[in-house]
């Protein structure tokens, strides 16, 4: 099927369809950039301009806290000072720590399920898998109450802990991978008197680096974009991630004349790390999504 290269009407239609889909998918990203680089008042006059209207970096200065409140108001900002800096740091902390912990804890648990012989192993494994059946909807409210009772509201610990210890999917995914690995090297090392932990960290873990990196990337994307859970357990800029800052900024904009340029600049700041991640790991991300779907 790949050998037929002539452009039949069907192929032309297929390419047209694909071009349309790609246009609808990519256009909003361009529109973010175009709006963020525009002057907010000029936007009102020329809503259809394809290029930035009155090109300016003012919107970025507003959302990064480089402009004074007066300047910001004068440029059509909400006046409510928005400095994305602290939120950016919070997002980095939240996504990095959560991802590192959950991938590490999942890896060592997966090793115990894949390689060690112990009573109750299969039972515990199926119990863990049953957790996949329960959607977040049922655990969100009680987890909020629990975090509140632990006195961890509005802390990184409260935000991170519930998702940092246990992931049925990660454990399942890594265990399956480890079961498929050859045990020869490990057994040789064990015969040479290496301890189990040494084997785990020196042999099994490096051999599993592929799926570990895949899960880390997917986990990081998920945490970076997380909104609902931080919304429940955080209340100020000391811990709130970017997604919340963005939502608050959007809602605090006056209804009549929102600072669309500022909003789009903030949106770009929130999306940029993911776009960079995509530039670096694009192929791996695309392939791993197909793979996780099949697993």
């Amino acid at each position, binding site marked *: 099927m790949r050998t037929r290269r002539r452009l039949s009407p069907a192929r032309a239609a297929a390419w047209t369809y694909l071009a349309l889909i*790609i246009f609808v998918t990519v256009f*909003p990203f361009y529109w973010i950039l175009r709006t963020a680089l525009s002057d907010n008042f000029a936007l009102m006059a020329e809503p259809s301009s394809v290029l930035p209207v009155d090109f300016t970096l003012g919107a970025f200065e507003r959302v990064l806290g480089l402009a004074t409140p007066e300047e910001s108001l004068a440029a059509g900002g909400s006046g409510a000072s928005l400095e994305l800096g602290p939120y950016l740091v919070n997002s980095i902390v939240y996504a990095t720590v959560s991802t590192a912990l959950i991938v590490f804890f999942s890896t060592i648990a997966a090793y115990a399920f894949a390689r060690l012989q112990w009573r109750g192993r299969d039972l515990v494994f199926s119990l863990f898998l049953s957790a996949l059946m*329960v959607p977040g909807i049922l655990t969100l409210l009680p987890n909020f109450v629990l975090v509140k009772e632990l006195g961890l509201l509005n802390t990184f610990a409260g935000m991170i802990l519930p998702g940092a210890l246990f992931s049925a999917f990660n454990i399942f995914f890594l265990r399956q991978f480890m079961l498929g690995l050859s045990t020869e090297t490990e057994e040789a090392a064990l015969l040479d008197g290496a301890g189990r932990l040494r084997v785990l960290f020196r042999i099994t873990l490096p051999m599993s680096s592929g799926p570990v990196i895949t899960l880390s990337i997917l986990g990081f994307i998920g945490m970076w974009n997380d909104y609902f859970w931080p919304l429940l357990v955080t209340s100020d800029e000391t811990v709130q991630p970017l997604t919340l800052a963005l939502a608050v900024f959007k809602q605090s904009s006056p209804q009549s004349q929102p600072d669309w340029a500022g909003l789009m600049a903030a949106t770009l700041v929130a999306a940029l790390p993911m776009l960079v991640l995509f530039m670096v790991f694009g192929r791996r991300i695309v392939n791993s999504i197909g793979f996780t779907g099949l697993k």
Partner: protein
Amino acid sequence: MSLSTAGAAPKRPPATGPKRPPRRPAANSPAHRGDGWLAWILIAPAMIGFLVFAVYPTLRGVYLSFTEFRVLTPPTWIGLENFREMFADSVFWSSLGVTVYFVVIAVSLTMIVSIATAAVLHRITESTVIRGLIILPFLISTVVAATVWSWMLDTQLGIVNVVVQAFGGDGVQFLTSREWAIPSVAFIHVWKNMGYTAIIIFAGLQTIPPQVYEAGRIDGAGESKMFFRLTLPLLRPILALVLVLNVIGAFQMFDIVSVTTKGGPANASNVLQMYIYSKAFGQFDFGYASAMSLSLFAILIIITFLQMRLLRANESETD
């Protein structure tokens, strides 16, 4: 993460790798001496997480559904009172209706567009770059997606309305009118999720051996006939999985509504998750919110079960 795979687990028996050594003798062999305590140390963090943040909240969520609970005072048992209130609550029923309306539009559009996109991709290009472009919306936060689209769908200045008016149409109040709110939110949802779904289906298409199509072609089947007679039936397991995941995800949609419409205008986009959130955190009625969560969970289980059954029944017919 766990959500995106919720449907995957039950189908798979606790797989036993071929390389696993036989159980009894190995457990006593020198290599496995001391495995027991080490294993428990290694799974301890996961076990704590499982018990404290999955099992306990689930049981507690069920318990709270039968209580009057306003967070500041301890819960008091009120039996089925919350559920009785729910049955009489017109907002709950309208929320359920709005949610179903949203799920039907969002999921059917996502499925149709992503199957079409995956099939077209599979037929005409192997390019990872194109697949990468299609998956871009998956990488960004739903909050970002919702913010951009609320700008593009803005009634006065949004580019979509500017284009509509340029073609002589009237400005549409996409996110601020009763009739358009849910379709617009559903569109944003589809925009955000279509690529991800398409890539999973694409990966499924790649597992179909080319010989199948060669055989079909020899039998004189055309493209569309092969698509409906070969591709779709062979893809059924993956399509079933993707469908179930999409339905579960759509039923719990919250972020888009939270950013764009807040459930309005006049509850027109007040999906269940939004209503639960406002009951819990707007009115601190945690007992009632828990009861609604439990009901939504029950609905999800029933729908998932029905979907699995229906799709599996079809499968055995063709085999």
